[in-house]
């Protein structure tokens, strides 16, 4: 008998303190898909309201992860500082912070803020200098690899913050190359994933490169097995939630918790089911509203959007582990996204079956990092 996934006790909220960015990355998903709007900077006063609204609206969850996103979130340090200060001041013990950053904005004040908030940093670094700098340049054309390496080293030396490295895999740069590169950096966790773009767009993977990417996912799966067998938490966590899903025999009603446990908040306080879904039909409310407004609107959005699956999903062997795909990315990448999610699910089963066949399923509990 299959169980349905139990109620989530953790919420993740993507907050964009600004849509502005000091870089002009050629493959930027936010810019290329016109997700950002001209909203300026979130004010510190509104940032405080973000924390208060989440605290009130999500009173039943045990953990609220505020994930700073953008744009480059650290461009608006006053808003980030206001959120961290307010969360610490509330003393709920429920708030934690993550920031997706390009690693080019660094100051003593920033180091103080991230230390105070114990902010987990996901730093974008594609590969060695030549690979990284080809795409990730500042608005004036200056390359950024040296800045990013300095950022990682400084954060590691001067704070206790956890650092992850994140790479975009694009035409001419394979997953295996990126993973091997990231594992040489002074970071604990890595994430390297295929560019999300339409076929034929600049840097999109060719059909042949997509096949290599899928083969490389198996390589990553082998590294996960090696780490678990050695009693280590895998550096690459992309399969973790699904392997645990197989272990716990649960299925997904939807791809993620958008609208229920995941929300996006824009610089002017608008609340959406995800920061990447900000069309007018999906607007749930504003953090200045009574939190019941966006919480209730989120529940209705879920029924309207994420519980309605494509006919082909019903018969898909990966549906139980996939839940119907990310509505944002699927709308951009179409069937190619399905293809990759499908492969992720296949490798998930390879990892699970390896430990089942060796009668060592207990080793999979090593995926739960906090223990």
């Amino acid at each position, binding site marked *: *008998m299959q*169980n349905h*996934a*139990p109620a*989530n*006790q*953790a919420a*993740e909220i*993507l907050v964009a303190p600004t849509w502005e960015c000091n870089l002009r990355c050629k493959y930027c*998903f936010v810019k290329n898909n016109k997700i950002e709007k001209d909203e300026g900077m979130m004010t510190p006063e509104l940032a405080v309201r973000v924390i208060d609204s989440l605290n009130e609206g999500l009173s039943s969850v045990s*953990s609220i*992860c505020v*994930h700073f*996103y953008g744009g480059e979130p650290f461009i608006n340090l006053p808003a980030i500082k206001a959120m961290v200060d307010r*969360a*610490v001041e509330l003393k709920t*013990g*429920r*708030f*934690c*912070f*993550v920031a*997706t950053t390009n690693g080019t904005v660094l100051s003593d004040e920033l180091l103080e803020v991230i230390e105070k*908030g*114990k902010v*987990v940093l996901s730093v974008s670094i594609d590969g060695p200098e030549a690979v990284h700098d080809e795409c990730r340049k500042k608005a004036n054309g200056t390359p950024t690899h040296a800045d990013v390496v300095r950022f990682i080293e400084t954060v590691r030396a001067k704070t206790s913050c*956890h650092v992850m490295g*994140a790479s975009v895999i694009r035409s001419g740069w394979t997953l295996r190359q990126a993973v091997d590169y990231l594992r040489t950096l002074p970071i*604990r*966790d890595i*994430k390297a*994933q295929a560019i999300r773009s339409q076929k034929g767009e600049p840097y999109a993977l060719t059909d042949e490169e997509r096949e290599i990417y899928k083969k490389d996912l198996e390589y990553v799966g082998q590294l996960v097995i090696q780490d678990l067998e050695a009693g280590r*938490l*895998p550096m690459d966590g*992309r*399969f*973790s*939630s*699904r392997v*645990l*899903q197989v272990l*716990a*025999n*649960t299925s*997904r009603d939807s*791809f*993620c*918790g958008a609208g229920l*446990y995941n929300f996006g908040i824009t610089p002017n306080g608008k609340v959406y089911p995800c920061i*990447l879904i900000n069309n007018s039909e999906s607007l749930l409310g504003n953090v200045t509203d009574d939190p019941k407004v966006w919480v209730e609107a989120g529940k209705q959005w879920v029924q309207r959007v994420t519980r309605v699956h494509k006919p082909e999903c019903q018969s898909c062997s990966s549906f139980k582990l996939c839940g119907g795909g*990310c509505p944002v*990315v699927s709308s951009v990448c179409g069937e190619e996204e399905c293809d990759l*999610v499908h492969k*992720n699910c296949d490798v998930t089963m390879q990892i699970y079956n390896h430990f089942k066949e060796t009668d060592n399923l*207990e080793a999979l*509990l090593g995926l*739960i*990092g*906090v*223990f």
Partner: protein
Amino acid sequence: MKITKKLVMKALTDVQFRKMLEEKPMEALEMANIKGGQTEVFNALQMLNEIATQTTKINDLLFCITNPNGPIYA
């Protein structure tokens, strides 16, 4: 930790055992013939909660990064 893991593995495959572990932990231990105490039960339930949380996360996409080591509270 060995006993805790044993409890978790059994609770993941046996819904009734899990319920019992939550409601009548000592009886659950006796029924399963597992030598353990309140500490092991507490840790096992914590681990089961963490699994429940992690199984709803999605780590496929760069956009949805969460700390794989679990939350670090401010």
